């Protein structure tokens, strides 16, 4: 299994990471090396569909009660944005 040039650009689109033309070739080479490495998991005959795919936490996760607890102040949160105006966050035009 190898990743094509087209797929690299598609991955950049899905992951929202700009990939420049000059970086595509190097990325393609590196990601294919990683894929070759991880492909080992498909070679193991003992590991097949019969094995469970449970998440292996040693204990059960749980939900906390649905109660309002301490809240962060809205103005401070918006101040953390690289571009904000009072309690609003400024971004480029989203809808034309």
């Amino acid at each position, binding site marked *: 299994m190898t990743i094509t040039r087209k797929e690299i650009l598609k991955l950049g689109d899905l992951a929202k990471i700009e990939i420049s033309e000059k970086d595509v070739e190097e990325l393609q080479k590196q990601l294919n090396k990683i894929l070759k*490495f991880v492909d080992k998991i498909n070679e193991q005959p003992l590991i097949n569909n019969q094995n469970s795919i449970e998440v292996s936490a040693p204990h059960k996760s749980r939900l906390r009660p649905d109660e309002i607890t301490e809240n962060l102040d809205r103005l401070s*949160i918006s101040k953390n944005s*690289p571009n904000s105006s009072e309690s609003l966050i400024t971004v480029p035009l989203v809808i034309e």
Partner: protein
Amino acid sequence: MITPTDSLSDIKKGLDNKSFSCKELTKFFLDRIEKANKKINCFITVCRESALKEAEKADLKSNSVPSPFAGIPYANKDIFCTSQIRTTCGSKMLENFLPLYDAEIVRRAKNLGLIMLGKTNMDEFAMGSTNETSFFGAVKNPWDLTKVPGGSSGGSAAAVAAGLVPFATGSDTGGSIRQPAALCGITGLKPTYGRISRFGMIAFASSLDQAGFLTRNVEDCALCMEFLSGFDPKDSTSANIPKGDYSSELYAKLEGKKIGIPKEYFDGNLDSEIGHCLAEAKDIFSKLGCVLVDIELPNTEMAIAAYYIIAPAECSSNLARFDGVRYGFRSINSNDIDSLYKNTRNEGFGTEVKRRILIGTYALSSGYYDKYYEQAQRVRSVLKNDFNQAFKKVDVILGPTTPSTAFPLNKEARNDPTELYSSDLYTIPVNLAGLPAISIPAGFGKKELPIGMQLIGQAFNERVLLNVAHQFQLHSEWHYQIPKFNESCDE
């Protein structure tokens, strides 16, 4: 008199006897950090003013605070959010990020009166095992400044090894506490998944991430566990399972304890000098009355491949939050919302992080999910079962922490991204199974570089793990060794 390698109980004694004040103690470590950090780059942020202020306050109330930790300095890996103190996670993306709240482990430390000296350097978003992926530059190993300290908690490990802090926090997703602890000759504990709250710990791979400690010895680890671990309702993966009295159980005799020796951990991948040190360690355990039992962990090799699917898959999801909108870095080269996301993430993340996000996106994408992600989860359940079988026969498993001692710093020469994957061969299976494990010093290689021994315990049984590790330290002296570099911070 304060010595840079004092254990927590030594420091506590000194404070109680008034041999030194908390301010003197804090200043002592801050001065050492100032000298050493230029050379080994283990701190991203040093909190000199706030630490001295806290120390003065601690001195004023020294008689009224019952906390065993009151007035003791420590450092946090820069993955833990600290309210209004810069938290970078080793990334340009968070270069100027000021969190609005403390991580739970930081909050607990504050309540106990611990004094935070600063935030330690780390691989970007904890992705790496050399500390070279940090946006703030690589950390150097105090044992040899041309070698890596390990990663991703390399800054914490180097700081403890160089006597700059008595202990530091870390996080371990595939070995990020144990591997740097081994390469820097200190003690590093990754507790059971769920044992310590991850609230406020910036997420990398949520089914694997676990907070823990890098300390001078096992006794200090036990103290950290006693006071900083435990259930937190704010973390849905936090386990509400009673803790033990870790410190008092350190002294239980080991007579009859069964120690598993997995043959897969002692094969051709392991440097012979590490094998030799572990043989001596096994002898010590035999003399202490332990029974060494040969066991098998037959799918160990598969663990790395499974990890390098699961961890990137989870990171691709977790790191989606860094989009330049609500906090962190934002690219100025954007005209619309899509290019804002894409340029921000391209400019804000380093090469390794982007590579992992892309591979994770691939493994989760339609058509490849079954072949990679599901299959990796199957491998994971097989590995977990291997450990379950082993623990029917033994109390603790012994093996190496790393296949080699610290290797040269040389980021530019690492063209193959998979080149370093095997350095986590012995630590990764533990994260996939969610188990606790500790790395403790077990000797030195020919180049006078430290060697770590890993002990793996049963889920939520850190008591036995710490007991076995402590008994080894009572009968060995490796954990007392300090790098020559430390003398340069004394002048």
